[in-house]
């Protein structure tokens, strides 16, 4: 199949990516799914993880997203995410510092923020996994 997918990655602050690609793999809440041209229409939530973009058979970019939504039709795949960073740009030391900082806040105990902090830690840990795990 020569059909390409119009892949768009949008954050509240800007349109981050908009390009014709051969395949995208999106980390859905209920499992990763790959999108080729002519995919059945789907609306799905996205968990924190890595979006992998393929040009031809090679990976062109890997982008970390902190959750969001994906809308897929036969021609396009639109991912809405509040935070998105290319995996190569993530600095391991930064994320680790962030995690330990958050842990400290969590143990300092502010019950109102507990849920928010736990969520932030989960995202940061997903970031680490994104760096470590090899592409498919």
């Amino acid at each position, binding site marked *: 199949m020569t059909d390409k997918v119009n892949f768009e990655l949008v954050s*509240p602050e800007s349109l981050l990516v908009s390009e014709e690609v051969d395949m995208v793999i999106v980390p859905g809440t209920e499992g990763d799914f790959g999108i080729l041209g002519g995919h059945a229409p789907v609306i799905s939530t996205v968990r924190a993880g890595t979006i992998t973009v393929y040009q031809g058979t090679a990976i062109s970019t890997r982008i970390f997203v902190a959750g969001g939504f994906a809308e897929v039709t036969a021609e396009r795949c639109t991912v809405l995410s509040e935070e998105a960073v290319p995996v190569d740009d993530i600095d391991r030391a930064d994320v680790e510092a962030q995690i330990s900082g958050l842990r400290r806040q969590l143990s300092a105990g502010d019950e109102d923020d507990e849920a928010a902090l736990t969520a932030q830690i989960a995202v940061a840990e997903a970031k680490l996994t994104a760096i470590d795990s090899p592409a498919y």
Partner: protein
Amino acid sequence: MPSLKDLRTRITNVKSTQRITSAMKMVAAAKLRRAQDQATAARPYAERMERMLGSLAAATGGSSNVPLLAGTGKDDTHLLVFVSTDRGLCGGFNINLMRNVRLQVQKLVNDGKTVKLFCVGRKGISLVKREFPSMLVVEMPEVCKPSPSYEGATEIAQRIAEMYEEGEFDVCTVVYNKFVSALTQEVTPQQVIPFAPPEPEEGAEEEATPDDGAPYEYEPSQEDILSDLLPRNLSVQVFRALLESFASEQGARMTAMDNATRNAGDMINKLTLNYNRTRQAFITKELIEIISGAEAL
């Protein structure tokens, strides 16, 4: 008649004021450019989110039990969220906003509804405190400093959502200055809770099925997605209101400062004329004195 020295000091004062206002105008113009870019950059996200929401709302056919979409079933208590500025010197910006809020409050109160006010921005807070001190429930100064961020919008949205869950209001409307051009702003009220899809009938029908006619699959269920999507949509709407308002603020400030600079220029001209006349009058008077003194000899 003011003395020459007084006039001279006044001229210098006005000149330094003019320097300040023209600098502020320049700063506002630069910020306006950035604010406009930011507003444009944020548009795709809001558009796509609206598209998804439209199709979801149409698919559930309004029968959903997600409260943010369906509402509480009453409209007794209204929450007005209005976006003012943190800093002054921007012409009629906050006054116009306040006028609209006042009208709405009066209308709602006349209809026998309870009104609560949620104020964003420092200037609005002081205005409201003077007029409706009992209605002001939340104040959030300085969320747009130095410029609106999505985090700030989320903070506001979360606050609104919490209040909604606790049943503190039934209908929420955001009032903000919409950016039309650098010269004009338009006070716009927009209802955010319950969520009103943009064009409910034909538009939604069309959106519900993607281009090739097949219906969307939902993963997980529609309800789950909706309950995740709607709070975010709230943030996005608030964010958009903040951005529009911020761009408008810069536009208004630019215009106001432009006027101020021009007025200062006029004033300097008038004062200078006055100064020169007075100076000449003094010289003439002195000459007359000398001449008449010489004649008397």
